[in-house]
């Protein structure tokens, strides 16, 4: 059983953290992952940086630009992660844009993920129909769970299609926006969370975008299985370095 499915089966609300590989320093990747696990994080999204991250707000854009400037590449990331399963046991997901994966070769990329022990992928600019038609067989051959996004504007019909193609969890984007921290969720979000809950989907949902603190984490996980924090964590390591990751995690729950 894939580590993601195992984790989703646990009777608890999940905290997942996103960070950009190669940021703040090129070789911080492994230590960040180990410290997140040590501090009780349930799942990690490792961001593969891209020059043109169009779904991301300023924080992740800047960390991506910095990581690329530091010298991060797809090959180097795989190299940094080659022994990661000797020390880390929680689910690991690579999140990145499709072009760098295409250039590496989609099948070669998937094979390498399996070899290292990556459990899933999140590719914001690979639409569900393209995936379903061209790539699903390859992803499944290498035991990878592909995670799709839904937003408050996604129709029920489309959510059901996404649910049928998914076999892990659904990434619920909290509002119509690029990534970035908000301090609170309003009525619109609450209604959206409740609408999704009422659909009784096959796959559990994890909320992302705009989760930054204990308040938003608690609100999001009232109906969802878990929440993902990205920009707020990146801001934390920008300001405090990577030695105080525990402080950040304890502030969330």
């Amino acid at each position, binding site marked *: 059983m894939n580590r993601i499915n195992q984790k989703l089966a646990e009777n608890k609300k999940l905290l997942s953290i996103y960070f950009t590989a190669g940021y703040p320093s090129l070789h911080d990747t492994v230590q960040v992952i180990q410290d997140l696990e040590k501090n009780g994080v349930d799942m990690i999204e490792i961001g593969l940086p891209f020059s043109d*991250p*169009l779904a991301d707000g300023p924080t992740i854009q800047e960390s991506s630009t910095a990581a690329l400037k530091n010298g991060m590449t*797809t090959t180097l990331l795989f190299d940094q992660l080659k022994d990661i399963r000797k020390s880390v046991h929680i689910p690991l997901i690579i999140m990145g844009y499709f072009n760098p994966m295409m*250039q590496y070769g989609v099948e070669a990329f998937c094979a390498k993920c399996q070899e290292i022990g990556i459990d899933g992928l999140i590719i*914001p*600019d690979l639409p569900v129909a393209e995936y379903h038609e061209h790539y699903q067989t390859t992803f499944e051959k290498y035991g990878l769970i592909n995670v799709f996004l839904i*937003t408050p*504007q996604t129709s029920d019909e489309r959510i059901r299609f996404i649910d049928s193609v998914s076999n892990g969890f659904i990434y619920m984007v909290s509002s*119509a926006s690029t990534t970035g921290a908000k301090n609170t969720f309003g009525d619109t979000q609450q209604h959206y969370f409740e609408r999704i809950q009422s659909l009784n989907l096959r796959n559990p949902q994890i909320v992302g975008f705009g989760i930054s603190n204990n308040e938003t984490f608690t609100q999001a996980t009232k109906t969802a299985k878990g929440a993902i924090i990205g920009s707020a964590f990146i801001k934390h390591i920008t300001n405090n370095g990577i030695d105080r990751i525990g402080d950040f995690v304890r502030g969330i729950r």
Partner: protein
Amino acid sequence: MSYQVDEKGYYGDFGGAYIPEMLYPNVEELRTKYLAIMNEPSFKEEFDQLLKDYVGRPSPLYYAKRLSEKHNTKVYLKREDLNHTGAHKVNNTIGQILVAKRLGKNRIIAETGAGQHGVATATVCALMGIECIVYMGEIDIKRQAPNVARMKMLGAEVRPAKSGSKTLKDATNEAIRDWINNPVDTHYIIGSAIGPHPYPDMVTRFQSIISEEIKWQLKEKEGKENPDYVVACIGGGSNAAGTYYHFLDEPNVGIIAVEAAGKGVHSGESAATSQLGKEGIIHGCKTLLMQTPDGQITEPYSISAGLDYPGVGPLHSHLYKSGRGEFYSVTDDDAMTAGLELSQLEGIIPAIESSHALAIFNDKKFKPDDIVVISLSGRGDKDLNTYIDYFKL
């Protein structure tokens, strides 16, 4: 072989809609409605009327006698430079603002590099009384001050794109991010034949007025609709798409595309995408684009800001790969010389983008009785400072 977009949004291997889910409802709304809207009689009537009375169409098809004598062939110039706002860009912005109105949108966003598409968008927004926000790279804002002033005078807000390389591709990213954050009331007017389906097809159709007119104008002048060649410069490729459109399925019409080689195709400072690009994804479509082996999009270079784009529209990638189009690359120096030549032989100062198309005579020899139609996509007023610096005028 077909050169029309298929129902999934592809030209051969290129195109599609590689967009984040956040954009899906907007792009899907457009995809399901654009053809029906464009076919409404009231739409056609309004579009045609504005092109005639506001833009000044049809643009002349001008027989360039002295240029023809110089190059020993028959050269016609399609005078898009005489359109209101000085280039072909306005054909598309008129079309898209009318689409936006019918979709009930009351806020327009656009990206711009040199500022021509930004000015054309600000113009139609002023005409319709709709709010207009133009994203422009911080570096381009400094380089193109007169066009920034024009947009402001027309009532548009110019927002600097400060991310990445701070030029056209980043302005496009910022416009896409704006659309993600404003999914209900906003229409994004993309200026070139790029972006997720249906944009390349929609922009091509609005620009296809260029080749539609060439056909009947040439019939009047030469007694036949088809030239031997149509020639256009390509950045993203909107004027080229419009110039080729009605000739794509006419095998006897040669399609010639001229890209910007900058300081030389292999100099490291070039925008010759067909020569340097590989298949990949940029701004929502699969196409040829300039990138590192690792798949990071690189920054192109050309003396002409309008050709300074790391990708090319998916139709053009298909024309290149299928062999339907002949692709050439012209350096800064050759383009500038061709611009000067046209100025002094015909009394027409071209935009530097169009000068690239005019430099085709260095690379391609035509027969004396060949009819060669070149798209003169824009006028040179905006480039005067570049010409002054280059020629020490």
